[in-house]
């Protein structure tokens, strides 16, 4: 059984239909990259999975547990949604670290507040995560003392600290200088090798192909093409996918 099942997710803002029935499944330990031009609904899809937006229609299931079902709209109190969010982690394009806390405190805050993890254990976990991100010597720095790439790696450690079933990345390198992109991509690549289940929205095509098992090409709120990452990105079948990818090849 797939770890994550997403069926027919629809989302409208006012009159604009942003998602028009998105479906996909993801197995444990696999990752999927979502590609497509700006405005195609990629970010909205991630925000729906993390319940930052409520889908208008559709179904979200993790490990067989139904987290969202528009045909049975019970169980959506604030407290329940808060719990459901913990199945997913989200790494933002703009990092969104908490500026008044050090890197280590950023990672430790939520496990302490939300899961009541004992201080000693929490610190050990956080330090291990930061060292996994190559940031051991930066753990006592505040976000403004870190480069964008370092901040994003702290943000990844912070998301991992809650041990989500699925880790989502929303264009994790789009706010970074080209020379800082590599260090973040390397970390994500390592997570993929360690079989972290991930959904990666990205504009880095080569990366999307090499790291992910599956790829999904979205356009105007629908899935145009999906399949193995190498197939979709190197040998697209749909005309729209070819157009999109050829523009990247030119650039």
């Amino acid at each position, binding site marked *: 059984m797939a770890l994550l099942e997403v069926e027919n997710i629809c989302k409208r803002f006012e009159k604009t239909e942003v998602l028009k029935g998105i479906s996909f499944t993801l197995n444990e330990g696999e990752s999927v990259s979502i590609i497509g031009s700006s405005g195609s609904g990629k970010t909205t899809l991630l925000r729906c999975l993390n319940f930052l937006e409520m889908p208008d229609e559709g179904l979200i299931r993790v490990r067989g547990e139904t987290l969202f079902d528009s045909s049975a709209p019970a169980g959506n109190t604030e407290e329940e949604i808060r719990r459901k*969010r913990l199945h997913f982690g989200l790494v933002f394009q*703009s990092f969104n670290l908490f500026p008044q806390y050090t890197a280590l405190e950023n990672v430790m805050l*939520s496990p302490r507040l939300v899961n009541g993890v004992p201080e000693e254990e929490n610190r050990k976990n956080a330090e291990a995560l930061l060292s996994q991100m190559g940031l051991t010597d930066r753990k006592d720095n*505040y976000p403004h003392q870190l480069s964008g790439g370092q901040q994003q790696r702290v943000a990844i450690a*912070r998301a991992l600290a809650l041990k989500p079933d699925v880790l989502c990345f929303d264009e994790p390198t789009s706010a970074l200088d080209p020379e800082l992109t590599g260090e973040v991509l390397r970390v994500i690549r390592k997570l993929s090798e360690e079989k972290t289940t991930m959904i990666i929205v990205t504009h880095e095509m080569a990366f999307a192909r090499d790291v992910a098992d599956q790829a999904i090409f979205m356009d105007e709120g629908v899935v145009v093409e999906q399949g193995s990452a190498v197939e979709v990105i190197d040998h697209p079948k749909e005309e729209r996918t070819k157009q999109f990818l050829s523009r990247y090849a030119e650039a």
Partner: protein
Amino acid sequence: MFVTVTLSLLEGFLGTLRLFCLTLLFSLPLGLIISFGSMSRVKVISVPIKLLIWVIRGTPLLLQLLVIYYGPGILLQKNIWGSGDAGRFIAALVAFVINYSCYFSEIYRGGIQSIPVGQYEAGQVLGMTKSQIFFRVILLQVVKRIVPPMSNEIITLVKDTSLARVIAVYEIIWNGQSFIKSEGIIWPLFYTGVFYLLFSGLLTILFHYIEKRLDYFR
């Protein structure tokens, strides 16, 4: 004479200080509540509160003092403030608290709304509750941003307290001015200025210190 004047002014300054401290004590928290009200998505709450803020910020504090002190007596035919010095002081305090709460609420609102929405969303996806997000993530960032405008407003309050004399609440200028009539000397009035300068200087140092303490993050 100098000692007599100093003692009299010190006594007056105590009245000033009392009004200053009590106004802050009530208007700092009340301002936060009003700011939440003005940001409420429920129109029945936000519209009247915005109206109140408009009226209070749009009319002189001097006028508000007069209306609050004399208004109830004329409308209800009854002095709700109690008699004598104490009653006048309470009326003045109420006027100051209402006025400053409204100003503070706008500073709070500006501070709260200047925090990027990403900070809330980061807290949400990390599973925090709304109050955890506000108290553990947002609040200190707001405090850092509002220290400069707040210090401005609080230093203005030091001097505004002198307006209370319009309803005969004794404060330092009242005492200083009394020497013009009784002794025919004007220098005590200038002397009151020294008190204001020293006190606002002290506050300036305090706020500078707070700003420094919050300098460790951006």
